[in-house]
């Protein structure tokens, strides 16, 4: 059994807004093994992107890590000073693939300049050596090396996404967080990017957390899947298990909402209601107001993650 590269325990990250405290990540625990892809799914606003940035040690202001532990390759990073985080952890131990269709590339700098920044600032490499290395990685993601001299607006959405993937891999980090890397790309490009990431996973043995709201993509790439709801983990387990034997009602509903090619579905289901307000989440199980099986206990006590099967956990009073 391979070792854990990432161990998250009881992690809490709250946004301290002037309207109140938003519990975006609330008491989360999970692990990531070496060479494994963990898919992280949930509706928008459930805290999955917040989790991504928290793992990078840079929760978006006014967010703060309140409690818990994040161990990357055995090293505790919560509580490390910003300077150490920047110089020793970020991008070297854990990097991030941003959503490329958005503004993750600065429009006024060349692609090369932005790619080699971590090499120059963190590794102290010379500009030319760094550019060589950047070109190598660009070729790895299927782009011509001379793209380093281009500006972001000269690239297509798919090309930008590849640049961002290459940038994330440059320092060969232990963990890569992919934050909705395929959202806002058109379907054909989406498939290309997924294939690229599958290839990279195989060739480089990437350990990755793949964040998306699109469960059908996760089925393609992830070994394990975690489902988040309202800042909490509701189910985690091997992909097969999650897809074929979902234990949590929320996961079941979520899966029922995906259109499937191979099965006849009378009509797509949807989950009634809306995700709760995280300033004042419902008491007990946070899903109970939308849950068709809600019982009295659901309204009063928070369910813990329970092992339903080998390596398959879910947090529900039904189990």
């Amino acid at each position, binding site marked *: 059994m391979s070792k854990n590269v990432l161990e998250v325990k009881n992690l809490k990250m709250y946004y301290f807004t002037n309207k109140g405290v938003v519990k975006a990540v609330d008491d989360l625990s999970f692990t990531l093994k070496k060479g494994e892809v963990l898919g992280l799914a949930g509706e928008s606003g459930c805290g999955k992107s917040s989790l991504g940035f928290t793992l990078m040690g*840079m929760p*978006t202001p006014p967010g703060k890590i309140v409690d818990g532990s994040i161990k990357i390759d055995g090293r505790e990073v919560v509580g490390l000073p910003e300077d150490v985080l920047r110089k020793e952890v970020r*991008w070297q131990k854990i990097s991030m693939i941003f959503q490329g269709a958005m503004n993750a*590339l*600065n*429009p006024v700098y060349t692609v090369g300049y932005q790619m080699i920044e971590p090499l120059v600032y*963190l590794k102290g490499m010379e500009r030319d050596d760094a550019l060589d290395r950047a070109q190598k990685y660009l070729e790895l993601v299927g782009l011509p090396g001379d793209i380093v001299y281009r*500006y972001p*607006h000269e690239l297509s959405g798919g090309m930008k996404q590849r640049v961002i993937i290459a940038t994330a891999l440059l320092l060969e980090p232990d963990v890569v967080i992919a934050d909705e890397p395929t959202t806002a790309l058109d379907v054909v490009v989406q498939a290309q990017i997924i294939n690229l990431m599958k290839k990279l996973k195989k060739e480089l043995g990437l350990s990755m957390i793949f964040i998306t709201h699109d469960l059908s993509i996760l089925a393609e790439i992830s070994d394990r899947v975690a489902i988040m709801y309202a800042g909490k983990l509701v189910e985690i387990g091997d992909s097969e298990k999650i897809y074929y034997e979902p234990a949590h009602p929320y996961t079941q509903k979520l899966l029922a909402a995906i259109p499937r090619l191979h099965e006849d579905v009378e009509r797509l289901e949807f989950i009634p209601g809306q995700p709760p307000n995280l300033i004042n989440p419902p008491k007990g199980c946070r899903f109970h107001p939308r849950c068709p099986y809600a019982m009295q206990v659901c309204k009063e006590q928070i369910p813990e993650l329970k092992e339903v099967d080998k390596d398959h956990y879910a947090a529900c009073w039904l189990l």
Partner: protein
Amino acid sequence: MGFGKYLAYRLFNAALILFFVVLLTSTLFVKLADVTLQSQIQETVQAEWNAYAQHHPGGHVNQSEFIKQRTEYWTDYYGLNKPYRTRVWQTTIKTLTFNFGQTRQTLFGTRDTTQIIKIALPRTILLFTTAQIIVILIGILLGVKSAQNPGSTVDRTISVLAMVTASLPMWWFGMIMILIFAFKLGWFPVNSFPDPTLTGLAHIKDVMWRMVLPVTTIVTVLFGGWAWTTRNIMIGTMQEDFIMAARAKGVPERKVIYGHALRAAAPPIVTMTIFSLLGSLGGAIITEAVFNWPGMGRLYWIALQQNETTLIVGLTYIFTLLYLTAMILADLTYAFLDPRVKVGASASM
């Protein structure tokens, strides 16, 4: 629209405006000149007759005949017998080619309007550029500082300062500066006119010494607005994804702010500020007059006090020219700073 085409369009537009402004000034000027020239001719002819009568006592030339003849001569000389349209056109052409004519009184040692403006213009540019560079430096520094901590003391102070300085006349602030630092404390000279007896290094020192008050005035009134503009644009930029990405990549915070954020915010900052600079140019020109700084503003003041029409026409023309140049410069700078525009140009060519 490609950038080359766009620039060509802007140049054409500027030329058109320049022509229009000159046409307007000429139309007004010729009308004004009519009145002054008529009375000037009357005086001249009367003086000529007096001189003639003195030298030829008992001469056989009839007075009214003489006057009529000479009046015709001068009318023809000044072109007053030509149709109004022709004269407007001629004045327009003359003005466009920097041929403004003579002033009535000697200024800066000459009566040639073009020459006078040639002497004054570099002084205005010296004063205004010096002040502007300081404003840009302070403004950007403070703007970035307050964008980093919105709601902080620095930020609040700047917003209040921007509001107050937006509503006070720069030239009035100059008068206050004179009151305090020249009259009350006596630290600086009241008069910014450089000492003409000094040369070389002493002259440069003298000029710099005399520039302190006017420059301080311009800087104090303008930097708040700059800082405020910079702040607002920077706050927008700091929320962009690429800032987050740069931080994640381990780029040092200083480089994130002064490299990524400021560099990305530069194009709008530059254009906005060039336009606000143009807006403040009028105030700065009047400020010159207050300090007696011998530049364009001082000329405006003299021209208005002494009704030097040719000088006003010349000043208007040069001012418009400068204004339009600065506008085109703003466009060029934008294109230079924003690669998206630059490539658009090369792609279309």
